[in-house]
Structure formats: C-alpha cells, structure tokens
C-alpha cells in the first residue's frame, strides 16, 4: 500500500527521529511511504486557542495536499483527532472543504490505528529490551478511542517489559497554549503525571503524541529523573539488528 505520511509540524521541526522511525517501520512492513512536501501544520494550535479562520485555511491546505492519498498516517493522536473531529466543524456543510473531508477523513489514521486496523498487525517484529510505561494521551484515549491498540502493539515487542501507569487516564496538563496561558496549573498536572511515571520504575515513557511527551519529558528532565521519552513509533521501529548497531 502507498501510504502518505502527515508528519505534523511538531514532529517535523522538533522530533524528526519519530518521522524516520515511522518510515522505517512502514517500509519494513513492505509498504511504500510518500511525504507530500506541501504539508505544514493541521491548525490545531490555532483552532484550540480560538483562531478559527487561520485553522480553516490550514484545513483547506491539508485537504488539498492529501486529497489523492489512499491512506494518511499521522504519528500524533491530537493532530489525527483535529483532522477527523474538528475539520468538519470548520467547514460549512456543502462547502468544498466539507466535500473533500467527507471522503478524506475516513482515510486519516493515527499510526497505531493504521497498524492494527488497516495493516492488521500487532507484532511488527520489534525488539526493545527496556522497562516501558505507556501514557494514553487524552486525544488517543477519548477523542480517537484507541483503546487497547497501543498496548497490544507494545506487548508484542520482544524484550519489552510493559509496566502499569497509575492514574493513567488523567491528562498530563500540556493542552497546547494552556501550558503557557495557565502555566501553573499545567505544571502542577505535569508534576503529578511525572511522579506517577517515575514511581513505576520504568526506563522509558512512551505515548502516541510527542507534544504530551515534550511536556512530561520536559518536567522529568528538569527533575533529572534519568527517564527517557520515546514516541511509540521509535519503539516499534527498533529491531535487534539496529539495536546491535547503536
């Protein structure tokens, strides 16, 4: 299958390793990955902060860029949710954007959905000999309804010990511009999340969204916890062979 990658602006700019991991993983599974270079940002920050018109213009750009894709894979649950849940709200019914999104939205997937539902794999042949804890991000959990998909993928990884995160379903406090507009509450939520993560004794915290990981990871790093963060794609992409090389 020819898969179009929507990398997202945050991953593109700050977490290119995640993008490279997605490409490596999907190619290893025998698929062709394309990267339409016109893509930029889904407009989530604008939309969530109340800037509707810029968000709508970015939605149009997205729809134009990915119109002809068989499937669009997004390694960020919040961006996938933005596209699927909020683009319809940004378009007047009957408008061009609405028509484009009607056909495009069902072809937009978070990475873990795509693996489990479309490619129908849970064992992707990965190897990752670490104690890992998974934080189910709000968009993954409540907006996309990823359910146990990420857990099934992680459980199939060789060498990986999956630990249980207390109060897992609670928000980490990132919330985009919330993290600065209400920095004190955001930090308080981040501290509690970081504490729960550290308590598990894990070496690595993973999630389906780098923005949440940037928040929790930034807190963990300030506290010098020694814990690393990794997008789930990076764990699923790693193999024994690559491990030997690094």
């Amino acid at each position, binding site marked *: 299958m020819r898969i179009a990658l929507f990398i997202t602006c945050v991953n*593109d700019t700050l977490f290119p390793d995640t993008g*490279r991991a997605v490409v490596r993983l999907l190619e290893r599974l025998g698929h062709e990955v394309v990267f339409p270079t016109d893509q930029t940002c889904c407009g989530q920050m604008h939309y969530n902060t109340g800037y509707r018109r810029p968000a709508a213009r970015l939605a149009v750009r997205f729809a134009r860029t990915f119109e002809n894709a068989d499937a669009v894979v997004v390694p960020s649950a919040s961006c996938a949710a933005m596209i699927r849940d909020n683009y319809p709200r940004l378009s007047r019914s009957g408008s061009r954007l609405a028509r484009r999104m009607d056909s495009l939205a069902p072809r937009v997937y978070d990475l873990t959905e795509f693996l489990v539902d479309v490619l129908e794999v849970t064992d992707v042949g990965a190897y990752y000999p670490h104690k890992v804890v998974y934080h189910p991000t709000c968009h993954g959990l*409540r907006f996309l309804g990823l359910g146990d998909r990420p857990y099934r993928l992680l459980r199939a990884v060789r060498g990986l010990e999956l630990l249980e995160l207390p109060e897992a379903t*609670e928000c980490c406090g990132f919330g985009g511009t919330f993290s600065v507009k209400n920095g004190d509450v955001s930090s308080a939520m981040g501290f509690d999340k970081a504490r729960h993560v550290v308590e598990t004794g894990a070496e690595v915290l993973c999630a389906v969204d780098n923005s949440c990981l940037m928040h929790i990871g930034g807190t963990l790093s300030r506290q010098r916890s020694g814990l690393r963060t990794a997008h789930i794609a990076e764990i699923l992409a790693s193999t024994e062979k690559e491990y030997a090389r690094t």
Partner: protein
Amino acid sequence: MSATFLGMPPFPEAAKRAVEDSRTRHNLHKATHTIRAKRTRVVDELGDDWQRLRAEGERIKTHTLRHLDHYLERLEESVQRAGGTVHWASDAAEANAIITRLIRRTGETEVVKVKSMATQEIELNNALEAAGITAYETDLAELIVQLGEDLPSHILVPAIHLGRAQIREIFLQRMGEWGRPAPPDLTDDPHALAEASRVHLRELFLRSKVAVSGANFAVADSGTLLVLESEGNGRMCLTLPETLISVVGIEKIVPTWSDLEVFMQLLPRSSTGERMNPYTSTWTGVTPGDGPQDFHLVLLDNGRTDVLADTVGRQALRCIRCSACLNICPVYERVGGHAYGSVYPGPIGAILTPQLQGMASKVDEALPYASSLCGACYEVCPVAIDIPEVLVHLREKVAESKGHVSEKALMAGAEAVFGSATALDAVQRAAGLARGVVPRHLPGPAGKWTDTRDLPDVPARSFRQWWNEREDGR
C-alpha cells in the same frame, strides 16, 4: 454581608495561588477521587444501558429547549391550576425583588433555604440581608460555607475545600451567632459535626414560616417540582413552613412525569455516585391541609434566552448540575472552585458563566481557557454536553474581540510560517543553526514553560530536510 465572587482575580492568577495551597489541594484530591470511584462503580454496573440513558437524557433536554416557549406556558398553567402562583423574572435583580416582596408580605424576617444554585446565582442572600431578612442555609455544606463567611467551591458539595478540623473550628466559633451554639466539647468526628448541625437547624425548621428553594426539575404537564438531596433538611423546608418560594431556571423543565425515569437514574449516579439519592421531594402547587399553603414559583431567565440563541453554546442549558464534570476535571482537582471566580465552577462553570453574564470582564474572559481540553468532562456528562467544543467556541469569541494584540500577532506569525512549506523549511533551518544557543530560561510568556520544564533539544535537521536529502540520494 455574605461573601461574593466580585473582585476576584482572573483564573490564571487565582489558580496560581490555589495550586500553592497544599491543604486545600489535599482535601480536593481526596474528595474528588473518592466520588469519582463511586461514580465509576454505579455507572459501569449499568453496562451499555448507561450510554442509552445518556442519549435519552440529551434528547429530552434538547427537545424541551427547542420548544421552551411552549413548555414554559404549559408549566405556568399547570402550576396555577394546582394552586400555585407563577412569577417571571428576567434577571437577578427582578428575581430578588419578587422574592423580597413575597417574604415581606408574610411579615416574616427569617427564611430557611433549601440548597439551590439558582439562588446562589442571583446572590439572593445578599439581597435579602439588605432588605433586613435573614436567610438560613440548611444544607450541611451550605451551612458551613455560610457560617464561615466563605464562598461555595463546588456545585454539590460547596464546602469540599474544607477538612473536618476546619469545619469544627467554624462550628465552634460561629454557630452561636446564628442560633444554637455548637457544644463546647465538639470533636471533628463526622457524626459529632452532623449532630451539632442537626440540633442547630432543628430550631430553625420549627420556627420558620417561609422557605426558599430551587428545583432540580419542573414537570410541565403536571406542574410538579422536584428536589433531590441526601440529608432530608430540604424536605423539612419544603413541608414545615406556611409559605414556599421556589426559584427555578427556565431550563429546568422536562415535559412529562415519565421523563423523570431517565433523569432519576442519570442524576444520582453522576452526582453522588449512588443508585438513588436518599430523599426525593416532589410537590405540585398546594395540597390543602398538607405542607405550605402558599406556593410561588419564580421562573428565572437571567441570560438563559441569550444562551439559547447560540447554536453551539446552547447545549450548556442541558446541564442538570450533577457536578460529575467538576469531580473528573484535572484542573478543578488542583485549583478548587474559588479560582473560577464564578458561582458555577469547574468545566460547566467555564462554559456557563461567560455565556450567562457575557465576557466583558477579565475574569469571565479567562474562563474558557481554564481547561486543557482533555475531554474527561464530556465523557462523564450525563446529558452529553460537549464541553470542549463549547470552550473552543467561546475562545473564538474572545479571540475576535478587541485587545489580545501580542497573541494575535503571534498567531498571525505562526500562520504565515505554516502557510508555506518553504517558509516552514526556512524557520526549521534557522532553528537548526541556532540550536546550541537556545537559553534554558526563555523570556516573556514562554517563560511560563521554562520555569518548570526543560525545552526539547532542537535537532540539526528537520524531518523534511532528511526526507529531501534521502530522495535526492536515490
């Protein structure tokens, strides 16, 4: 004078103080987590039925709101037929004037009150005090707040921010000023505290001739009003006095008695986490020889018809004040109710208050941002109010209003970058070059991030640079 929310700082500032108050945070954490667990248990035991009930609750409320004019007239007719008198109040001042006039007519200067959010909303107690009438709160938590000259911090448990020891202090110091004092050897044992309030309140119940209440539901067909409660103190107020005045928001209507079947399952399970609340009182106008013989219903608009005109925001009027959204909210859990500076705190407060009273003040304008949009409130809401959707909708109104110049400039700058892949690439390359010199502590609003969190390292190459180089190499 009782306390008021007027003059409180906007949410971010109030929240900063609140998160630093470790005692309150401890009380809130304990209380919200206990009630969450209870709710989960009684909701989960219904299995798939819960979602069906929720959809039905949403449907009934949406239908009623769409035909509100019709159902309001029907309710007025039914109440009058049953011997009650109906008054219409367009705003808080009008409602307070009506209630004051009705109480004065009885010649009384004291009233007992059933716990009611509508009377909190119109600040009735302050209005009555100014008119020389003393209003006694009889709900245990409302009593604690009133005696402590505090403000309610939760819809259902207004004293949720206080611990037992603090309540004991308040009882010992203040009860005597309002009636029978607390026993001097009062301990902070919950039973002892409840007993002290029982003895204190009993005198008031037996002596009062007038009661003021709200209502959880008003049935249009029969003219019946309902109050759900846990203590039975409400029932004392609803049955013993001669005159009963009920202040009810116009959105509290349900069309028929049988609609209550749905809400009597949704509300107790969502609010106290019980299958059924201990006391449900219903009354229909006046019953000769039984209960208050003079009954008045004050139907309150106070901004509600404006909310109804907003096609996205109007869903907030479905709210049945269960407080499940407060209990689940990670922001509420850390800051408590006072930080919202609003009678309705938590997620529902953040969407209801700015709609009811407009967003002219800094406090009201800050409320739609008091959320990380995590969606937990929507998930638990028994009438499926999409709170995140309304929050974003209200943020749009703020962003479209005057001011917020620097934020608007930042957003326009971001759009310019995201409006072209070339511009984005240029910014990424510049960031890659500057990666070594990003300071650990950023100036301006971004400092709110770096105060407590490290920034990620900026990579030397963006993903698209890597991709393009890979393509070129093929």
